C-alpha cells in the first residue's frame, strides 16, 4: 500500500474515533516478509508473510487501554470495531497513578530513505543465485550450508485524535546469515550482512570471510582452552550483543526507576565506563534503520549517551516520563540508532588481524550465543562463544578453541577491561524479532579488544 493510501486510511479511522468522542492513538504496522532458509546445504523453507497489524490505544482520565488486531489491509469495518473495542475496554481500566500522554503530532512526516522497492520484490531466483555465489566451492559432503536470507519491508505509521498529522516510515531490509558447519566434527563458522538497499549486497565479502574460516577450521589444530582470564577480541555480533544488554540495564530511565539498572541517577555526569567508550544515538545514520521522528512527533537528533565513558543521562520513553515525572527524550521509536564510536586500531577484518604480529595470545570471539542477564543491578551478563572462535597465539600460529562461557559485568567490560576499538564501523542487527519484522542495526567497531575476560566454562569438544 502506498504511503498516501495508508495515511488516508488512518485519517478515516481518526474521524471515526472523533465521532465517538474518544481520545485514541492508532499505530499501523505492516510487513511483507520473505525468508529463504537453508539447512543441510538445501533450501529448507521458503516463506512469505503479509501482515497488517493495527494497535489502538484509548486514553481517559488517568487511564488507558489498548486493542491489537491482525487484519486485512482494506478491512475498515473490522478496524473500526477494534476502535470500539479499545474504547469499551477503557471503562474497565484501572486508574493509573499518572496521566498518560496522548501523542500530539505537529507535522506529517514521510520517511522512506531506507526503502528500496527492489528489496520488496526480490525474486526467489536472485536470492538463490546470491547465496550460491557467497558459498561457491565451500560446501562438501561434510561441510554443509545453513542460514537465512531474510528480505522484506516494514511500514510503521501513526496518528492520534489530537491532530490529523501522521508519522510514517517505510523501511526495507535484507538480513543474511550464512553458516558453514561440519556435520562430523560439529564446528560452525558464519558470515552476516545487514543492508537496506539491494545495491549494498556483497556476496564476495561473505565468500571471503567464509572461505578464510573454512581454511582455518579444516587446517588448524583444535583444543580445549584452560579456564581463566584471557585477552579477548570480539567481532561485531558479540559487541552488539553486549551493547543491547547495556541498553536494557544501563541507560533506560524506566529500568533505572524500576530498580533494574546498573547505573543510578547520581551516576549522571560521572565517568562510569572507559575513556574509549563513546556511545551515541544518531538517527542520521541510515545504516541503523533510523526513525527521524518518534511516535509522539518529536524530531530526533544526535545525542551521546556515554561520552568518553561519562554517562550523560538516561533515555526516557513517554510512559516512563509520565509515570516517574521525567521528560521524554524522543526515543519512542521501534529501534534506537546506536553507534559505538571507533577507536584508533586499524584492523577491521579478522582475516587481516590474524596475520598481524602480536605481543601476547588473543582469543577471538565473533558471536555470543544465548547470552542473558544474570543480575541486572550488577550488569552481570553470561553467554557462550559461537561461530568460529580462534585462539591467536603470540608466535603467530592459530588454534581452534572449543566454545567457552564468559560471565562478565558490563561496567568492567566496557570500563577497565576495554583496551582498544577498531576505527572501522560495521552494522550489526536483525531483520525481525519474535514480534514481527523490525529491521535494526547498531554500528559497532569491527573489532574490540578486552583484557582479563574470564573463561569460566570451556567445552570439551566442538
Amino acid at each position: 500500500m502506498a504511503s498516501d493510501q495508508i495515511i488516508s486510511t488512518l485519517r478515516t479511522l481518526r474521524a471515526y474515533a472523533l465521532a465517538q468522542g474518544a481520545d485514541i492513538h492508532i499505530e499501523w504496522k505492516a510487513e511483507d516478509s520473505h525468508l529463504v532458509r537453508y539447512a543441510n546445504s538445501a533450501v529448507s523453507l521458503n516463506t512469505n508473510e503479509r501482515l497488517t497489524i493495527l494497535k489502538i490505544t484509548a486514553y481517559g482520565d488517568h487511564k488507558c487501554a489498548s486493542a491489537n488486531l491482525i487484519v486485512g489491509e482494506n478491512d475498515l469495518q473490522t478496524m473500526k470495531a477494534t476502535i470500539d473495542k479499545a474504547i469499551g475496554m477503557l471503562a474497565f481500566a484501572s486508574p493509573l497513578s499518572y496521566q498518560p500522554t496522548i501523542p500530539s503530532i505537529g507535522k506529517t512526516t514521510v520517511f522512506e530513505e531506507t526503502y528500496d522497492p527492489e528489496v520488496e520484490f526480490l525474486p526467489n531466483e536472485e536470492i538463490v543465485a546470491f547465496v550460491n555465489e557467497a558459498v561457491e566451492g565451500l560446501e562438501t559432503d561434510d561441510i554443509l550450508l545453513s542460514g537465512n536470507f531474510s528480505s522484506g519491508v516494514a511500514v510503521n505509521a501513526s496518528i492520534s485524535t489530537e491532530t490529523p498529522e501522521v508519522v510514517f516510515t517505510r523501511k526495507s531490509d535484507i538480513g543474511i546469515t550464512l553458516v558453514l558447519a561440519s556435520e562430523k566434527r560439529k564446528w560452525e563458522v558464519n558470515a552476516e550482512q545487514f543492508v537496506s538497499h539491494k545495491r549494498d549486497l556483497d556476496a564476495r565479502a561473505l565468500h571471503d570471510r567464509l572461505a578464510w574460516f573454512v581454511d582455518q577450521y579444516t587446517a588448524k589444530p583444535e583444543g580445549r582452552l584452560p579456564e581463566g582470564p584471557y585477552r579477548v577480541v570480539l567481532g561485531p555480533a558479540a559487541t552488539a550483543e553486549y551493547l543491547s544488554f547495556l541498553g536494557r540495564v544501563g541507560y533506560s530511565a524506566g529500568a533505572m526507576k524500576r530498580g533494574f539498572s546498573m547505573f543510578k541517577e547520581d551516576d549522571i555526569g560521572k565517568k562510569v565506563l572507559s575513556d574509549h567508550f563513546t556511545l551515541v544515538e544518531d538517527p542520521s545514520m541510515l545504516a541503523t534503520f533510523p526513525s527521524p521522528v518518534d511516535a509522539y512527533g518529536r524530531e530526533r537528533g544526535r545525542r551521546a549517551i556515554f561520552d568518553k565513558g561519562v554517562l550523560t543521562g538516561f533515555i526516557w520513553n513517554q510512559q516512563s516520563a509520565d509515570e516517574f515525572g521525567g521528560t521524554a527524550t524522543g526515543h519512542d521509536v521501534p529501534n534506537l540508532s546506536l553507534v559505538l564510536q571507533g577507536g584508533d586500531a586499524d584492523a577491521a577484518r579478522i582475516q587481516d588481524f590474524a596475520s598481524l604480529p602480536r605481543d601476547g595470545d588473543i582469543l577471538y570471539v565473533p558471536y555470543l550465543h544465548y547470552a542473558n542477564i544474570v543480575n541486572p543491578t550488577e550488569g552481570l551478563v553470561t553467554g557462550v562463544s559461537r561461530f568460529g572462535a580462534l585462539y591467536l597465539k603470540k608466535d603467530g600460529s592459530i588454534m581452534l578453541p572449543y566454545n567457552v562461557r564468559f560471565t562478565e559485568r558490563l561496567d568492567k567490560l566496557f570500563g577497565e577491561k576495554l583496551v582498544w576499538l577498531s576505527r572501522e564501523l560495521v552494522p550489526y542487527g536483525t531483520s525481525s524479532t519474535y514480534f514481527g519484522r523490525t529491521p535494526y542495526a547498531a554500528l559497532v567497531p569491527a573489532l574490540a579488544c578486552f583484557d582479563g575476560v574470564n573463561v569460566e566454562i570451556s567445552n570439551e569438544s566442538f
Partner: protein
Amino acid sequence: MTVDWKSQIKRLVDRGAEYADVRYYPKQEEDFMFMWNGNFLAFNRSEESGFGVRVLVDGAWGFAASSDMTSPGETFDRAFANAAAAAARIKRPVRLADKEVLSGRFESPCGEDPFEVPLADKVAMLRDIDSFIRQPGVIQRRVKLSTVRKTIEYYDSEGAEIEKHIVDIFPSMQVAAFDDTGMMQSRKYLPPRLAPTRGWETMDLEHWRLQADRIVSEMRQLVEAPKCPEGRMSVILMPDMMYLQVHETIGHALELDRILGYELSFAGGSFVRLNDFGTLRYGSPKLNARADATLINSPGSFGFDDEGVAAQNRMLIDKGILVGAITSRQMVVEANERGGREIFEGSGGACRACAFYRTPIERMTNINIDPGQDGSLEDIIRQTERGVVLSGEKSWSIGSNREQFHFSTDIGWLVEDGERRGIVKDCAYSGMTLDFYRSLTAVGDETTWKVQYVDNCGKGAPGQIMQLGHGVPVCRFDNVKVGE
C-alpha cells in the same frame, strides 16, 4: 467470508504439488494484563485471523500466509511458487512419514471460558493479587495475566480435517526489594497446574493469598541473607527450577530438527547424534523423561499437532538411556534414512506453529520427568551431606548444542548434614549437560511432582513463541559447580 479450503488444496495438487496443508485461524484472542506497582502497564486485548499454506513441490517446502481473506488463491499460489523455487536447491527431497489420516475435534478442558468472564472481574482479580503482595518491604510488585483462546481449522491433501479449540491461562506474580549492597532480590510465583482444567476456574484467590505471603516472607529473608557459597556441592532443584533445566537441556536438545541441523543458523544444534538413540547414557538410571501430549491440563496438549497427527505419550529417556526425540513427519523419515536404521517409528506428533503466519516445526509438548522413589523434599534433604535447594529461575544461558548451561535462581536454602540451614541469595550453578544428568542421585516421589507452564519458548526463523508444559519432581544432582 468463507473459503473452500479443500478446493484450494486440490487446485495445488492438480498443479503438481505432492502435498499441501492449510491452517485457518478464524480467531485467535489474547487478553494481556500486566500490573507494575499497581499501574496497568498493559491492558490489552488482541485478535488475529488469517491462514497459512504449506506446500511440497518436487520435494521442497514453500509457505505463505496472509491476514487478508479477499483473495486466498494468491497466497496458495505464492506458497506453490516458493516451493517450486526452493526445489532448485535441494539435496534430499522431503518425504513425510505415513500417518493415520484423521478427522476430529479437540477441545481443551475448560470449566469457565476466561473470555466469557467480565473484564471487570479480571481486573478485580489482578488488583486483589496485587493487594496481597503490597506489603511492607516490597519495593517492586508485578502481576501478570495472559489468557488465550484460539480456534484452528486444519485441512491437508491426504484428507485430514481437524478443528481445535484451545483455551489457556498464564498467571504470575513477583515481588522484589534491594539488599544492603543495592542489588535487587526477587521472588516470584508461576503456579503449577492446580486443577484438571485450563480455564478461569483454576484461579483460586485464597491460594494466591497464601502464596503471596510465602513469597513476600522469602523475599524479606533474601534481602538479609548471605551470598550462596561457591564450590562443588549437591543441588536440589525444586519443580519451579527443575522445569527450566529440563526444558533447556532435555527438551531443546531432543528436538529432532535441531539434531538434524535444521536450526544451526540461529537457535543451534544438539550434542545428540543419530547413533546415540538406544545407547547414549544421558543420565543416571533414576532419569526417566517423556514427551506427553496427553497431559490434558497442560498447554503442551493440543489433541492433534499441526500435521494432523494425534497426541502421544512417548519415552525420551528410559532409566537414563536415550530412546526418543521430539519429532515431526519430515524429520523422522530423514533421521531414519541418515541413520541407516529405523530409529523412529512414525511422527511423535510434535509439529506445531505459534500462529497462522508461521510454519510448523518440532516443538516440545509436555516434557516430563517421571516421579521417583526417593520420597519427599524433606526425605531428600535428610540424605544430603552438603548442598543447596534452589527455586525460581532468574536467568538462563545455554550452549548452542545444549551441551552446557548456566542458570541462576531467585533463592537457595543451604543444606548441611541432612538439615536445611538458612536462606542464601545470588545462587547460580553451571555444568555440562551429560555430566549433570549422570549425577542425578535422587528423584522425588509423586507428592513432589508439579506441572509447570512455559508461555514463552522461542525457536525458529522467523521466530516463534510457543506454550507448553513440564511435569517434574524435586531432583538432586551431586558435585555441581555452584557460584557466580
